[in-house]
């Protein structure tokens, strides 16, 4: 792909501006968070052009933002954040993505690495068997026709009420796992047909389950509040989304919006940015359907959490109380939210699109659970398969600069085909095992596509968010067991 040759102005060491004058039709400038070193990769592809294209969206305020894990996506860049005024702005399904509420959750345990190490193979086997994964995987839950609507409205709460998890899990889930304003009537029959058999499945691609250990703690006081107590402590990380249900909702509404855009005289440079006014019937319908998909994804991660706990306790011979297994937090990183933010000194209600970006609200924000009121919202940033992951917290500066948002992961630098040329799945498996990481996957070529070399170094990515102050690093984990979908 061609290198991007557009104008880029250095604001400071980690902030790079695409001037509004770059393209006629941009309503705000673009702003990319990156180190100079990372910028080289970013400019090698067309992600900055996508940042500029997003700036065309009617009602967009401040900047079209890109987090340091920015890479070339479809329509929006991955790592993109766009906030639009709800009174005269638009909502774009492409600004959320096909995997609505793809997200991450982290569980803590009371166990140390030494206790788990002798049983890690058995544990990873049990997790692989306990949680359906892979292309076309079907869940163990059989939803009746009416039940799917309940899942779409009640999300994680539905799961907990059906025996999947604990009431406390809801407290430490973004939106409590149950986004209000979800209307199942706005979700197509096809979407429900796709979703119903897939509840409680990991899926494929970059989705995974990980057994990790705490590798370093940078803010011990903050970590303690989260139940991250010491190095070597075992953690569990779950990364997945809304499966076919979300994919279908996204596709359905891109069509709805493309058909209606002329009516609203909206012109965007890429069809994948199709959008309609937030307050139009089409905009409202999409938001109601997107919330259903988001709730489905939370229910999905909640069901998976239950089987993860079961497998963990069985293999380690502990009851749940002994094992801990509390949910530290669950974040969405593909979503649009209606939020209040300061815009030019005034409170404004905005529709914040986070496409491969994580909410990062500071201490004291009303949407942060009471438990974290003094430290800020936990932010979970998974690295790639063989490397480390991070726990961060949101900051006041994120509220001022990025509408309370930060990065979501490492961010790809190499295509899947290029990754496969670098290494074969079997070699990667051997390499990971030589580093003490046990891997189970039904798909060896998928493993190669997710090779470490295909990603930016997550440490660099979170380093930029920490240095700029849009979130702070609290702890680092490293994997000891991985299940790849």
């Amino acid at each position: 792909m061609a290198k991007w040759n557009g104008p880029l102005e250095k604001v400071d060491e980690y902030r790079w501006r695409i001037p509004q004058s770059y393209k006629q039709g941009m309503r705000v400038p673009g702003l990319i968070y990156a180190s100079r070193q990372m910028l080289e990769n970013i400019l090698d592809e067309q992600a900055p052009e996508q940042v500029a294209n997003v700036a065309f969206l009617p009602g967009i305020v401040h900047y079209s933002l890109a987090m340091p894990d920015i890479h070339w996506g479809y329509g929006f860049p991955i790592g993109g954040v766009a906030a639009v005024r709800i009174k005269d702005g638009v909502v774009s399904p492409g600004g959320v993505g096909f995997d609505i509420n793809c997200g991450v959750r982290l569980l803590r345990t009371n166990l140390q690495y030494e206790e788990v190490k002798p049983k890690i193979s058995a544990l990873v086997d049990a997790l692989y068997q306990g949680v359906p994964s892979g292309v076309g995987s079907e869940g163990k839950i059989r939803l009746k026709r009416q039940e799917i609507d309940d899942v779409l409205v009640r999300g994680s709460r539905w799961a907990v009420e059906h025996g999947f998890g604990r009431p406390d899990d809801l407290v430490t889930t973004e939106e409590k796992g149950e986004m209000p304003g979800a209307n199942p009537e706005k979700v197509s029959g096809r979407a429900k047909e796709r979703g119903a058999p897939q509840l409680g499945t990991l899926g494929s691609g970059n989705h995974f389950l990980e057994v990790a250990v705490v590798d370093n703690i940078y803010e011990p006081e903050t970590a303690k509040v989260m139940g991250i107590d010491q190095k070597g402590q075992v953690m569990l990380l779950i990364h997945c989304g809304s499966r076919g249900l979300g994919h279908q909702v996204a596709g359905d509404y891109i069509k709805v919006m493309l058909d209606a855009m002329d009516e609203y005289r909206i012109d965007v440079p890429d069809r994948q940015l199709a959008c309609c006014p937030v307050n139009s019937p089409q905009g409202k319908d999409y938001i109601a359907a997107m919330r259903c998909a988001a709730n489905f994804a939370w229910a999905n991660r909640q069901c998976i959490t239950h089987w993860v706990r079961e497998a963990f306790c069985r293999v380690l011979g502990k009851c749940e109380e002994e094992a801990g297994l509390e949910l530290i937090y669950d974040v969405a990183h593909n979503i649009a939210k209606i939020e209040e933010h300061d815009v030019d000194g005034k409170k404004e209600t905005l529709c914040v699109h986070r496409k491969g970006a994580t909410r990062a609200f500071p201490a004291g924000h009303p949407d942060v659970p009471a438990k974290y009121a003094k430290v800020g919202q936990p932010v979970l940033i998974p690295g790639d398969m063989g490397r480390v992951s991070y726990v961060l917290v949101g900051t006041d500066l994120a509220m001022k600069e990025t509408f309370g948002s930060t990065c979501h992961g490492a961010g790809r630098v190499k295509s899947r085909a290029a990754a496969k040329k670098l290494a074969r799945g079997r070699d990667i498996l051997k390499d990971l095992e030589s580093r003490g990481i046990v891997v189970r996957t039904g798909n060896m070529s998928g493993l190669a596509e997710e090779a470490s070399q295909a990603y930016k170094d997550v440490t660099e990515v979170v380093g930029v968010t920490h240095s700029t102050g849009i979130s702070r690093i609290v702890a680092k984990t490293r994997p000891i067991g991985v299940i790849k979908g």
Partner: protein
Amino acid sequence: MRRYRLIEHTADTGLVAYGKSLAEAYANAAYGMFSIIADLRRVSEVESRTIEVNERDKESLLFAWLNHLIYLFDVESLLFKRCDVTLFDGKSLVATCYGEKCDPSRHHIRIGIKSATYHMLTVDPEKNLVKVIFDV
């Protein structure tokens, strides 16, 4: 004649499909898409479905056509290795598709596709060529 070639895209995967007619290019795009998902050499033609898609223009038609096939793969596990397009006018398409239900013990599944996207989506009626990027 080559039916399709893959396009490398950082986060995703795409293809350019060719044909003697635009209808054939749409059929080859479907073939290419299922080749990304699975090794089609091991798929037999034991099931068929007739699919009708109607859209506002040729680009939306490509998007809807491929996403309809992804939907069928998701709900019925159907892997199609051949699509005969029997009606095509740039806004409507009728095709009979042949393939088999996916059996993980026999069919080598490479990767799942979440959706076709509009990003860089191109339909060229002069060259009978289509281009599409998938979210994988």
